[in-house]
């Protein structure tokens, strides 16, 4: 039994019905997780399986939904694990992973800035890359910028 199977088994025991499915065919094993319980699963992965760093947290606009993607890495085991969850496009909301990994703080601010995903319980959820008075979330597929910004015409 390899570690991924162990992880899946453990999660099924601790958090039943959270794990939707696993995908193995890609580059790394992927765990598809229920949106409401994603943070407990992440905490479990950190504490029990040694995924001590969150390499990357990002989102992707799939047209009808927004995918939230966590890339976890465990230095001692040299193992990468991807955790994915699906958010609704109209009102994307998810619990923050800031308490699990500190690096999530800025990743989530960036996702909030560019995708408009709201992270519940985040300590400082403000725009990070764009100006505070910017309108819209640019990395969404249907994004159209405001006609001008402080008197400067936005040509897009």
């Amino acid at each position: 039994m390899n570690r991924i199977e162990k992880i899946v088994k453990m999660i099924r025991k601790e958090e039943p019905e959270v794990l939707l499915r696993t995908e193995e065919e890609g580059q790394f094993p992927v765990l598809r997780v229920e949106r409401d319980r994603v943070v407990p699963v992440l905490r479990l992965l950190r504490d029990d399986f040694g995924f001590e760093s969150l390499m990357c947290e990002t989102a992707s606009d799939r047209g009808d939904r927004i995918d939230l993607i966590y890339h976890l890495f465990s230095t001692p085991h040299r193992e990468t694990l991807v955790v994915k969850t699906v958010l609704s496009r109209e009102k994307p909301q998810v619990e923050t992973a800031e308490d699990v990994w500190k690096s999530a703080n800025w990743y989530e601010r960036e996702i909030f800035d560019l995708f408009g995903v709201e992270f519940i319980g985040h300590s400082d959820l403000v725009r990070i890359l764009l100006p505070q008075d910017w309108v819209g979330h640019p990395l969404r597929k249907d994004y159209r910028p405001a006609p001008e910004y402080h008197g400067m015409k936005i040509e897009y």
Partner: protein
Amino acid sequence: MGLLEHKLPENVFFTKLDQLTMRWGLRNSLWYMLFATACCAIELMQTGMSRYDFDRFGMIPRATPRQSDLMIVAGTVTYKMALRIKRLYGQMPEPKYVISMGSCANCGGGFVHSYSVLNGVDKIIPVDVYVPGCPPRPEALMEGCMKLMEKIDQEPRLVRSAR
């Protein structure tokens, strides 16, 4: 025609003091503001250093806009940054000049279709010399500066507060 000009033979050449010395002083001592945004900043920096040596022309970097005569906008100008550039330009004392360095500052360059990039710094501040390239070689930047010096030589007035 003043009285003096009448009395003197025609081949005497009259000029104002600022036509000669003032201009000469300004063109030989263009202190540029260290205004680096993106990639071109590295080439700007290398121009100031050992191999190319801006100091030969009397050009030295100043950190504060109050003491600089020339603003070299090196790199991409985003909308967020544009407001600061406007402000920094306003803080520079007259006579002041702007060199737009690199495609991004000239017209948006490769980022012309980006939602957050201003398509050319000349939309917010007046630009004297455009240096093309992505990024321009130090030689190109130096030529831009020499062109600016020529421009200073030819301009009717040094202080252009009305522009």
